[in-house]
């Protein structure tokens, strides 16, 4: 087997990006987008992990390597990106701006695949930022009011996350003295640094209350983009947290409890808000929040009970991979539903979608059932309190997911046909369903023995169905009509009418233009004089400061020979605070 150089993992999509710059080569480049993640997939599936790579001349010294966890994440991410590229090619076949979409997709792909193999802070942050910012283009792609609004919220959260991440990584790098990502998990890193990094990742992961961007972005983006947003990019947050948190090494019950509280909030809020949505993609997005919260719960347990972490880690990877495949299949199914007429074709499509949905609910025999099992067994190792709380949490997750799935299917079943959606989207969807069913067998996930199915595993679905039937009956009897709010949950209350104004809205220019006119007229003279005054004031103030304020003791240099001692007070501004 040929050893695949690791730089090809982010390098292949990047190279394709360069091809897009040449107008003549665009058709070829477009066709190649689905195979751009191929090197990543090969690297992840190789029986022997590719050798680490050190590029000292790049950034702050780039180190690429593939860890065991990274290989799993890389495998399902690469598969998902390939599917998304293929799906986008077929969905946007008539879109005049599809090249822009492809470029953004490739950039985000480069970032996502690259961060999974990056081992040093500089390149990790670079890839992470590349992924986050390029996704802005994916969210904005449709160009409508909803997209503009979603884009605005998305970029605000993304930048917030970037800044927190950057600050945290910089502090961590200083504390550890190295630029290696894995060193952040060593003891001795200031908690503030870890907290900042965690905030950056939790925003990406969509943990409540940092989730506000997520449903908006998922419902605004085209379906293939939603598939990778939910399937691959949210997982990047999880991957980051698993890499940098000192899991399994440090007991941090407070942090664990905080994380668990956020997770439980997510588990509760996701179905509540998701059920009232009118857009199936928004409903699916809320279900992602619920699932990611479950993973955050696993992290919380790992922080509080280090002895349980090895088992939890295995379960989390399994859960992530399963969710990635299932959710991607569901998102890719949405445009297929739009393209098929109401009747048996649609029933067929919905039937196919039911397979990943069942996996997501965690029915026995599906990948979801396996993952749920795994996490249950893993947590049993930890302290009793955690295990005690986990069973209801898992049940709530399953119940919530089941309700959300039923809601999504109801909406999909009634969705009108959209003539503009090409029929070609069905093929990627079929492959995605196949992956959703059998995906875990294809990629190197940690194995877990399946437990025999018991009837109680079906309880969440049954309860959800009963609840749905009851609600339907109540609605019919009371003769009320459910008016779904705009996607965005709470945020929708703040901005009912999205305006097509610029991002980070600023006052309209016309009025200010008029207001400027009189100011402009008296500008030159006043400017010159206040400028003169500023010069005078600056010179006088600095001179005064230089003369009046005494030098700190020991810094004055009476012998005045060498410059070295005179430069010593340089450190004092820092010491001053």
């Amino acid at each position, binding site marked *: 087997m040929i050893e695949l150089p690791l730089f090809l993992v982010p390098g292949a999509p990047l190279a394709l990006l360069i091809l897009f710059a040449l107008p003549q080569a665009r058709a070829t480049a477009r066709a190649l987008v689905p195979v751009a993640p191929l090197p990543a997939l090969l690297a992840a599936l190789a029986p022997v992990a590719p050798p680490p790579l050190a590029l000292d001349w790049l950034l702050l010294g780039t180190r690429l390597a593939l860890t065991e966890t990274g290989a799993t994440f890389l495998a399902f991410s690469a598969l998902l990106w390939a599917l998304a590229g293929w799906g986008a090619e077929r969905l946007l076949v008539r879109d005049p701006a599809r090249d822009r979409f492809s470029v953004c997709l490739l950039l985000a792909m480069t970032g996502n695949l690259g961060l999974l193999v990056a081992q040093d802070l500089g390149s990790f942050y670079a890839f992470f930022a590349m992924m986050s910012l390029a996704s802005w283009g994916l969210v904005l792609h449709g160009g409508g009011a909803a997209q503009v609004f979603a884009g605005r919220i998305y970029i605000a959260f993304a930048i917030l996350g970037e800044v927190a991440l950057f600050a945290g990584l910089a502090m961590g790098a200083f504390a550890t003295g190295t630029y290696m990502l894995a060193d952040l998990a060593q003891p001795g890193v200031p908690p503030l640094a870890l907290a900042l990094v965690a905030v950056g990742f939790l925003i990406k992961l969509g943990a409540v209350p940092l989730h506000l961007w997520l449903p908006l972005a998922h419902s605004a983006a085209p379906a293939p983009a939603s598939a990778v947003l939910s399937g691959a990019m949210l997982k990047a947050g999880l991957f980051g947290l698993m890499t940098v948190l000192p899991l399994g090494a440090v007991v941090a019950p407070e942090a664990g409890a905080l994380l668990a509280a956020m997770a439980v909030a997510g588990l509760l809020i996701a179905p509540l808000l998701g059920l009232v949505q009118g857009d199936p993609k928004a409903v699916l997005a809320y279900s992602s929040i619920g699932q990611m919260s479950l993973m955050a719960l696993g992290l919380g347990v790992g922080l509080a009970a280090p002895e349980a972490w090895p088992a939890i880690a295995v379960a989390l990877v399994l859960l992530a991979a399963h969710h990635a495949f299932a959710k991607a299949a569901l998102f890719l199914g949405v445009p297929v539903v739009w393209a098929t007429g109401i009747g048996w074709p649609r029933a067929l499509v919905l039937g196919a979608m039911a397979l990943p949905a069942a996996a997501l609910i965690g029915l026995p025999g599906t990948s979801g059932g396996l993952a749920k099992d795994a996490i249950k067994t893993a947590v049993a190792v930890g302290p009793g309190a955690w295990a005690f709380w986990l069973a209801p949490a898992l049940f709530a997750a399953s119940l919530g997911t089941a309700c959300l799935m039923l809601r999504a299917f109801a909406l999909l079943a009634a969705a009108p046909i959209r003539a503009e959606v090409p029929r070609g989207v069905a093929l990627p969807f079929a492959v995605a369903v196949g992956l959703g069913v059998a995906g875990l067998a294809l990629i190197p996930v940690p194995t877990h023995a399946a437990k025999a199915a018991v009837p109680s595993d079906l309880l969440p679905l049954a309860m959800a169905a009963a609840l749905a039937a009851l609600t339907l009956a109540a609605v019919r009897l009371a003769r009320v009509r459910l008016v779904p709010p705009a996607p965005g949950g709470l945020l929708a209350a703040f901005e009912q009418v999205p305006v097509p104004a610029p991002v980070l809205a600023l006052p309209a220019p016309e009025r200010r233009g008029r207001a400027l006119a009189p100011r402009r007229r008296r500008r030159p*003279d006043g400017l*010159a*004089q206040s400028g*003169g*005054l500023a*010069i*005078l004031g600056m*010179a006088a103030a600095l001179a005064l400061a230089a003369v009046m304020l005494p030098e700190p003791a020991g810094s004055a240099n009476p012998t005045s020979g060498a410059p070295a001692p005179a430069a010593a007070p340089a450190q004092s501004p820092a010491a001053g605070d």
Partner: protein
Amino acid sequence: MTPFPFPDLTPQLIYHLAGAALVGIALYRGATSSDLLTRILALNVLSVGIAAVFVAAANRGAGAVPDPVPHAFVLTGIVVLVAVTAALLALAERIDLTGAKSDD
């Protein structure tokens, strides 16, 4: 020998202080005048004030040979300043001409 009440007052110090005062005057007018020509004049006065500091510092008191290097600095400064003044005046005239005609 001198009946003046400040015995250590030397010509050097007097012109030093005059230079300081000229700097103050020039900067004050630069900050309070809107007339282009006055501001150009103020900059010229400022440079004379600086030259006074240089030349006074070069002087080593009566009888001693003064330091030639600051003299060279002031000579250079005078020529540089006349060049910049010419450029400033050309600009000011042009602004005045175009200003009278139109405001584009």
